[in-house]
């Protein structure tokens, strides 16, 4: 009986020590995670990107984190599979997530500032700022 009690004492000591150690590690890792997140928030911006496929399907990619001054094209590349052609006027988006090929339909982008306004330049020339809300619409003419 004494030996069993002693063996249980061993397992209790080992278990207790391991619990304290792993709890301490958890607290350290959580603190590291919070600090890293703070750093990330200081070094990046967040934008919301909408993709309207023109067939009733709309997808929002809210809180997309990009570097300050990143272009809309690169932000879109983060959230969708984009095929584009670089022309003398800038990048022209041909397909988003495989949607393309409908006659007289084009991928155009818009920015939101109280209302949707068509992008004035190509997507690779538009620099993003924190809180920007943008949209890609498969627009027919």
């Amino acid at each position, binding site marked *: 009986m004494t*030996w069993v009690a*002693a*063996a249980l*004492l*061993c397992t209790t*000591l*080992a278990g207790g*020590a*391991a619990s*304290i*150690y792993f709890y*301490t590690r958890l607290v350290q890792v959580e603190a590291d995670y919070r600090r890293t997140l703070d750093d990330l928030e200081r070094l990046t911006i967040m934008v919301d990107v909408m993709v309207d496929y023109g067939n009733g399907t709309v997808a929002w990619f809210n809180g997309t984190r990009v570097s300050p001054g990143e272009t809309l094209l690169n932000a879109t590349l983060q959230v969708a599979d984009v095929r584009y052609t670089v022309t003398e006027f800038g990048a022209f988006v041909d397909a988003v997530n495989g949607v393309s090929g409908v006659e007289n339909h084009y991928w155009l982008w818009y920015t939101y500032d109280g209302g949707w306004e068509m992008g004035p330049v190509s997507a690779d020339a538009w620099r993003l700022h924190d809180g920007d809300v943008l949209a890609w619409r498969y627009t027919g003419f």
Partner: protein
Amino acid sequence: MERGLNNTQRTAVAALLTASALTTNYLLVGVVNVKLMDLIVFAAGFLLGAGAGAGVGALTWLVYGTLNPYGFSLPVLGATVLGETLYGLAGGALRGRLGPLGWRPDARLAVVGFLLTFVYDLETNVVSALTAGVPLAVALVGGVPFAVAHEASNAVFFCFGFPPLASSLEKVLETYAR
């Protein structure tokens, strides 16, 4: 006279066990906190008596702690010498209380090895923390992986290693005692 040995023979056996502990320590110097020294010191106490076992432990650390690749610290050396004597004292205290030892593993010895090592690690970690000026809680918690390695390895060594080691040495000592 212990086990029919005269004082010279006992001293010679203690010196041999001290040398063995030292040799295995230097052989395992790259394996942190896994050593056969504690088992050998415990065996010394068991075979030669608590005083001799404590002496083997103290002598081993006096050499290993002074000529140590990880450096020298007098307070830590004092703590390790004191802690190591515990194994010898415990070995002496358990003489005749474990019944006949064969060659088979003995779980009771795993418990003994674990608890002795726990006390040793606690004592040496406290002294190391105070010496280095590290907060006690940080040192104790940070030392858990090393302590667990030490305690677990000693539990295994004592359980599986002590019965054959003690049985073999007893036979050798009986031969020389005649």
